[in-house]
C-alpha cells in the first residue's frame, strides 16, 4: 500500500471538502471525496410558503446566491404550470449570464490560476519580452510593456511587505510549475485586471437584481422589476444603456484575454490533457428560455454517455420527463440513514447518521446522485460538449479558436477529445464564458426590442391548488446542473430537495460502489511530492468545487485551518 494523503480542507474553495488519496509510485491509486459539513438546509423550507422559498434558498451559499433563487422559482412555476412573461425571462437570463461570467472569471483568475501560475516567478519576468509575447497573442489594450512594468513594481512592493495575503497558500517554486517568468508576469497582470473587470459583471446583477449579493427582484411567476422607461426608480433607458456599456467591456476581456490566457496556459501544460478525465458521462440542462413556457432555449443541454458525442440525448424543455425521471440519490456512502436504495428527489430523505470516516462505508455528507443509475460529470465541460454535440454554432466557433491557439503554441494538433481532462475543464469554462457573454448581449437586445413593442409585463400571479403538486426547477449554473425539487401540499412546502452541481461532481461512491467524478478524475494523477500535493489540487480545482452552506464563524484561536496531513 502506498502513502495516504489527506487534504482538509482543499484550499481556495467554498465550504469544507476533504480529499483523501493513496499514492504509490508517484501516482494516485485510490481517492475519496468527502463533504465535511451537513447540508440539511432543505429542512428549513418545510411548511414555508413556496413563494418565499427562493429568498431562503439563496442563503444556502455565498457564491451561488442567484442560482439557488432562480432554480427555486422555476421549481414552483413548474409545479403550477405557470408561464413567465417574456420580459421576465430576458431579465432573468441577463442575471444568469452576468453571474456566470463573473463566476468563471473569478474562478479562473482568482481561485485556480495560481495552481499553474507562479506569482513569485513573475518578479523575474522581463516586461519587454512579456509585452512582445502578449501582443503576438492578442490585441488587448492592457498588454503594453508599461503595464507589465507597473504590475511588476506593484507586485514587488506587495511581496516586499512580507504579507502575501491572498497569495499565502501558493506552492511557489514547486517542480510542477512550468511557466516562464514572462508568462507568469503576463498571467499575474491579467489576474489584477480581472479583479477590476469582474466588478462590471457584478454591477449588471446589482442593477437588474436591485441588490447584491442577494438579489431582490425575483418572484414566482416573473420578476418584480417594473418597466417604465421614463421613471427614475425602475428599469429605465439610462440604466439599460449603462448595462450595455458593461457588457461590451466584459466581451472585450473575455474574448481577448481570458480565452487567450487559457489557451496559452493550456499549451504550456499540454501534458495535463492526459490527466483528470474520470467520469466521461456528461449531463447538462438547457438554459436561457426564449418563450414563456420554457420549451425553447438559447443554450441547449443534454446527456452524453461514455465520452461519445454521438450518444448525445437532448433535454428539451422545463420539466422534461427524461431529466425528471432519471435522477436519483444514494446515501449508501453518505452520513444519512438509508437502506432504501437510491431515491428520487421527490422522495428524498435527509436524516443524518454520522459514523467515522469509513473507507469502505460512509465517509461524506454529500449524497451520491446518478442519472439512470450512472454517475455523471456536470459543469462547463459537460455544458460545452453537449452544446457541441447539439451543433450549437457559437460554442463550436469558440472551442475551435481555443483548440487552434493551443495547437499553434504547442506546435501540434489538439483534438476535441483532449477536453476530457483537468486542463480541458479550464478550456471549456473559458469557451462557455465567451458563449455566455455573447448571449448576455443578445438577451439585452431581446429585452429592448420587446419593451419597444409596448410589452411591459413582468409577472403572472401564482395561484395554489388545494391538493398536492410537485415540480422540478433546473438551471445550468456556472458549476453545472442545479435542480430544485419541491412538493407542495395545500399551498405549503411538504418536501424540498436541492441537487447541486458539486453534489454531482464531489459525490462519494454510489449505490453500486462506483466512485464519483472527483474520485475517478484523481486516479493516475501524478504527485511529485506528497507533502505538497499541488497536482491533486489542480484536478480538484478544475471542477470549481463549491460546497454550499459552509458556516462563516471567525475563529481567532485557530492558527491554521488549512492542514496537509501525510499519514
Amino acid at each position, binding site marked *: 500500500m502506498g502513502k495516504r494523503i489527506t487534504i482538509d480542507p482543499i484550499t*481556495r474553495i467554498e465550504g469544507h471538502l476533504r480529499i483523501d488519496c493513496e499514492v504509490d509510485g508517484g501516482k494516485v491509486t485510490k481517492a475519496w471525496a468527502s463533504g465535511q459539513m451537513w447540508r440539511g438546509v432543505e429542512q428549513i423550507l418545510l411548511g414555508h410558503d413556496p413563494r418565499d422559498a427562493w429568498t431562503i434558498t439563496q442563503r444556502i451559499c*455565498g457564491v451561488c446566491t442567484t442560482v439557488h433563487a432562480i432554480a427555486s422559482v422555476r421549481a414552483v412555476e413548474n409545479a403550477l404550470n405557470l408561464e413567465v412573461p417574456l420580459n421576465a425571462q430576458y431579465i432573468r437570463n441577463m442575471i444568469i449570464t452576468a453571474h456566470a461570467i463573473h463566476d468563471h472569471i473569478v474562478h479562473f483568475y482568482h481561485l485556480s490560476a495560481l495552481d499553474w501560475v507562479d506569482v513569485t516567478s513573475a518578479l523575474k519576468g522581463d516586461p519587454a519580452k512579456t509585452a512582445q509575447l502578449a501582443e503576438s497573442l492578442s490585441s488587448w489594450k492592457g498588454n503594453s510593456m508599461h503595464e507589465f512594468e507597473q504590475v511588476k513594481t506593484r507586485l514587488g512592493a506587495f511581496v516586499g511587505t512580507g504579507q502575501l495575503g*491572498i497569495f499565502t497558500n501558493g506552492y511557489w517554486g514547486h517542480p510542477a510549475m512550468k511557466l516562464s517568468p514572462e508568462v507568469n508576469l503576463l498571467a499575474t497582470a491579467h489576474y489584477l485586471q480581472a479583479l477590476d473587470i469582474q466588478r462590471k459583471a457584478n454591477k449588471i446583477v446589482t442593477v437588474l437584481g436591485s441588490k447584491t449579493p442577494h438579489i431582490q427582484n425575483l418572484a414566482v411567476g416573473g420578476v418584480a422589476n417594473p418597466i417604465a422607461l421614463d421613471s427614475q426608480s425602475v428599469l429605465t433607458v439610462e440604466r439599460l444603456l449603462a448595462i450595455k456599456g458593461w457588457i461590451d467591456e466584459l466581451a472585450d476581456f473575455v474574448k481577448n484575454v481570458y480565452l487567450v490566457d487559457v489557451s496559452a496556459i493550456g499549451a504550456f501544460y499540454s501534458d495535463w490533457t492526459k490527466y483528470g478525465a474520470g467520469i466521461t458521462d456528461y449531463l447538462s440542462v438547457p438554459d436561457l428560455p426564449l418563450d414563456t413556457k420554457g420549451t425553447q432555449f438559447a443554450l441547449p443541454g443534454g446527456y452524453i454517455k461514455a465520452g461519445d458525442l454521438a450518444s448525445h440525448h437532448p433535454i428539451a424543455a422545463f420539466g422534461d420527463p427524461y431529466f425528471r425521471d432519471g435522477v436519483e440519490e444514494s446515501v449508501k456512502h453518505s452520513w444519512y440513514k438509508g437502506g432504501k436504495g437510491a431515491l428520487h428527489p421527490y422522495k428524498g430523505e435527509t436524516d443524518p447518521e454520522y459514523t467515522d470516516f469509513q473507507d469502505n462505508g460512509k465517509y461524506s455528507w454529500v449524497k451520491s446522485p446518478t442519472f439512470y443509475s450512472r454517475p455523471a460529470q456536470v459543469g462547463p465541460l459537460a455544458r460545452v460538449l453537449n452544446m457541441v454535440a447539439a451543433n450549437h454554432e457559437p460554442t463550436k466557433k469558440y472551442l475551435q479558436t481555443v483548440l487552434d491557439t493551443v495547437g499553434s503554441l504547442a506546435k501540434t494538433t489538439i483534438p476535441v477529445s483532449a477536453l476530457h481532462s483537468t486542463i480541458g475543464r479550464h478550456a471549456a469554462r473559458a469557451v462557455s464564458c465567451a458563449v455566455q457573454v455573447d448571449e448576455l448581449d443578445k438577451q439585452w437586445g431581446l429585452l429592448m426590442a420587446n419593451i419597444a413593442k409596448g410589452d411591459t409585463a413582468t409577472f403572472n400571479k401564482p395561484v395554489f391548488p388545494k391538493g398536492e403538486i410537485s415540480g422540478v426547477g433546473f438551471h445550468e449554473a456556472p458549476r453545472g446542473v442545479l435542480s430544485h425539487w419541491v412538493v407542495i401540499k395545500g399551498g405549503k412546502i411538504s418536501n424540498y430537495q436541492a441537487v447541486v452541481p458539486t453534489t454531482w461532481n464531489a459525490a462519494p461512491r454510489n449505490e453500486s460502489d462506483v466512485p464519483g467524478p472527483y474520485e475517478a478524475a484523481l486516479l493516475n494523477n501524478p504527485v511529485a511530492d506528497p507533502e505538497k500535493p499541488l497536482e491533486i489540487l489542480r484536478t480538484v480545482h478544475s471542477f470549481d468545487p463549491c460546497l454550499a*452552506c*459552509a*458556516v462563516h464563524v471567525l475563529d481567532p*484561536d485557530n492558527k491554521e*485551518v488549512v492542514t496537509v496531513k501525510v499519514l
Partner: protein
Amino acid sequence: MRIVVLGVGNILLSDEGIGVRTVEKLMRDYVLPPEVEVIDGGTSAMELLEDLGHADHLIIVDAVCSGKPPATIIKLAGAEVPVFFRTKLSPHQVGLSDVLATLVLMGEQPGSTTVIGVEPQSLALGMELTPAVARQLPEVVGLVRSELSALGMNLAARV
C-alpha cells in the same frame, strides 16, 4: 466620507446570522445618512469588492468564536484587526479575509476596520437566533451606533 457597515454570516444556521440580523435591525429602525452604507453580506466574498472598495471606515459585524461564554460581545479595532485576519479564520476559503487582502493589493483598503463580534451559542439549523444571542441584539446595534457616532454620524430613529 464613506462608511460601510457590513453584516456577515449565514442566517440559516441560527446564531451564525447575528451579523445579518444586526444590519437588518439597523436598517429597519434608523434613518441612514448618505455617507453610511449598510450591507447584508451574507456569506459572500468577491461580490463585495465593489461595495467595500475605497471605504474610509469599515465596521464588520459577525459571529466570532473566541472561547468566551455564549452571547459575549467583543470588539476589535486598530492593531488587533490585522492579527485577527492574518490566519484563515473562516471556513470560507475565499472569505472576508481574502476580500480585505485583495483590497490591499488593489490599493483600495478601508481607512480603518472595526470588528464587532458575538460569541454564538448554537450553529444549529434554523432561522432564529437563540434567546441568549437575540437578547444581545439591541446592544450590538447600540455598539454599531456608537462607532458611527464617534465618526460623526448620529443616526435618527425612524418614526
